[in-house]
């Protein structure tokens, strides 16, 4: 379950960074996924604490982390960092989508009622309010970037700051986590956007996909390079800890780390995205390659989280020998619960889209007029 926690917060941070690329840095080609990325960050953020809650032995005391925090503990920061970031994301959504909420609030029915509640009675709109909304949303998007980095960097810090564990204890850990978060965030957006477009018969916004693919390629190179450099530096120094870590990599994690994480799920997407970025391919071929690479990178980041979180716990504290772990299917922290927790945000996104369209400018395949779902 603790594998899923950094994975989901990574998706949050990554999706938010994409939305900020559009809102703050003016990458207008990402307009097609700007709303979708912000909404994705929001729903994944809603579910980020759930794996933690499932992990706690005393979940009913979860709020003690904010009521009686012990500030010498890095973990005590979670509640505050999470709550602060959630407020920023919710406010940004409110300002970015206020126009849509006002439109939906005009009608009748439960959704209109819900939108009126969300608007908090402020349904006034003219050019001046639109400009103000835009300015505030841009400010919040800018503020959200360091907060997203803080949220996920903090998750990396939770692991990197534990001196008892040689597999975790590195100052590079939080940097690696931030970059892998961006990779997973972009990957989930590409994956989801292309699936939704296919299911709804929309024409893909080709410049947007190409741009996302290039970002994905760039960030994955940085993330993988950092991960490799970290391991290589330990291996090269040949310190005492390498004796046990080398064995961990060669024996316990050989398949999930060396074969799957690097050779299969890093190398293949690297080539797919590289070819796609360097050569001009037909849209159909390029899209298939990008989607495959994005899906593989989603798995790669999950593998990375697994190898970090579980790998670190496999080393015995006496630095002699290893333990074994594999989650059960039905237990509290098992595979079935993990699948449910990971699937729920997609369901919530579907509901979100029913209230406010996340792809307002989607164009049906073969059509030219702008239309919504």
């Amino acid at each position, binding site marked *: 379950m603790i594998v899923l926690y950094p994975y989901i917060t990574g998706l949050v941070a990554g999706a938010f960074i994409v939305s900020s690329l559009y809102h703050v840095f003016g990458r207008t080609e990402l307009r097609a996924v700007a709303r979708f990325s912000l909404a994705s960050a929001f729903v994944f953020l809603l579910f980020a604490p759930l794996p*933690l809650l499932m*992990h*706690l*032995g*005393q*979940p009913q*005391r*979860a709020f*003690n*982390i904010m009521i*009686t*925090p*012990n500030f*010498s*503990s*890095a*973990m*005590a920061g*979670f509640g505050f960092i999470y709550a602060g970031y959630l407020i920023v994301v919710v406010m940004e959504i409110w300002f970015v989508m206020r126009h849509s909420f006002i439109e939906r609030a005009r009608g009748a029915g439960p959704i209109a009622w819900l939108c009126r509640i969300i608007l908090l009675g402020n349904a006034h709109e003219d050019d001046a309010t639109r400009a103000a909304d835009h300015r505030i949303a841009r400010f919040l998007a800018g503020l959200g970037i360091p907060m997203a980095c803080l949220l996920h960097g903090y998750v990396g810090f*939770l692991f990197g700051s*534990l*001196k*008892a*564990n040689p597999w975790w204890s590195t100052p590079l850990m939080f940097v690696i986590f931030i970059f892998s978060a961006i990779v997973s965030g972009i990957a989930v957006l590409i994956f989801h956007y292309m699936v939704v477009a296919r299911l709804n018969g929309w024409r893909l916004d080709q410049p947007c996909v190409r741009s996302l693919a290039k970002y994905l390629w760039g960030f994955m190179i940085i993330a993988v390079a950092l991960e490799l450099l970290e391991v290589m530096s330990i291996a090269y120094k040949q310190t005492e800890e390498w004796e046990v870590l080398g064995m961990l990599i060669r024996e316990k994690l050989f398949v999930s780390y060396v074969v799957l994480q690097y050779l299969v799920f890093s190398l293949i997407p690297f080539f797919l995205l590289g070819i796609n970025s360097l050569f001009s391919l037909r849209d159909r071929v390029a899209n298939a390659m990008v989607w495959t690479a994005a899906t593989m990178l989603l798995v790669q980041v999950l593998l990375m989280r697994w190898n970090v979180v579980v790998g*670190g*716990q496999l080393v*015995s*504290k*006496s*630095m*002699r*020998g290893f333990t074994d772990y594999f989650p059960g299917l039905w237990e509290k922290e098992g595979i079935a619960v993990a699948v449910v927790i990971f699937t729920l945000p997609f369901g919530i996104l579907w509901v979100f889209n029913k209230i406010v369209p996340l792809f307002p400018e989607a164009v049906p395949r073969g059509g030219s007029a702008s239309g919504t779902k």
Partner: protein
Amino acid sequence: MTDDRNRSRREVLKLLAAGSGLLVFPLGTLLAGEREAAGDGARAPYWAYAVDTTRCIGCCACMRACRDENDVTAGVFRTWVERYRIGFDGEVRVDAATDNGYVFEPAAGEVARAFFVPKLCNHCEKSVCNQVCPVGAAFNTPDGVVLVDQKHCIGCGYCVQACPYGSRFIDPKTHKAGKCTFCYHRLAEGLAPACVHACPREARIFGDLNDPHSKLSVLLRQRHYRLLKPELGTHPKCYYLELDREVV
């Protein structure tokens, strides 16, 4: 006018003196350390532990005594005994006894050297487990024992990961952090921890570091000892007499 000014200056000085006295007194008490007992001036104990690795025979009476005394849940251990077997080829094989003792498999190569190392919570002065506890449920007592407040522990397991000695666990029955307490309830009654009491070879020694005549203090002056993972800066208070270099 001058008198008034003088009087007021005197009053101010008096106030300052009284105020600083109030400040200095408790500060002084604090600086003298929590080891100093308030009241009669006698030193309060500061508990620590030693393991004489040359004396342990791996009978595991300590483990059974601990389980009985503290009603430790089956499957987890507050103290355990590791067996080290070093072959002529230099290969080090380590295993730990379970409740059923050791598994004696057919000899896998000749053993050049073998010994037992009892392990338990090191009750570190700078305990990482306390540092990382998000709700402050783990704490150091003034007499040098690391405890967990079971009414506050949220069972996150972060302390289990942070402890460099593998001394903590999440109790499968209570779903909270569990660990050795130096049998704190026995200390309150003037008794030694159950494991120390049960050891037939006096391989486990418990005592007061503040008492220069305690058996522990004398041993630490006279014998060679090592600490586990001293480089981590946790300042453990479990001293291993004549510990083999293979043990970390």
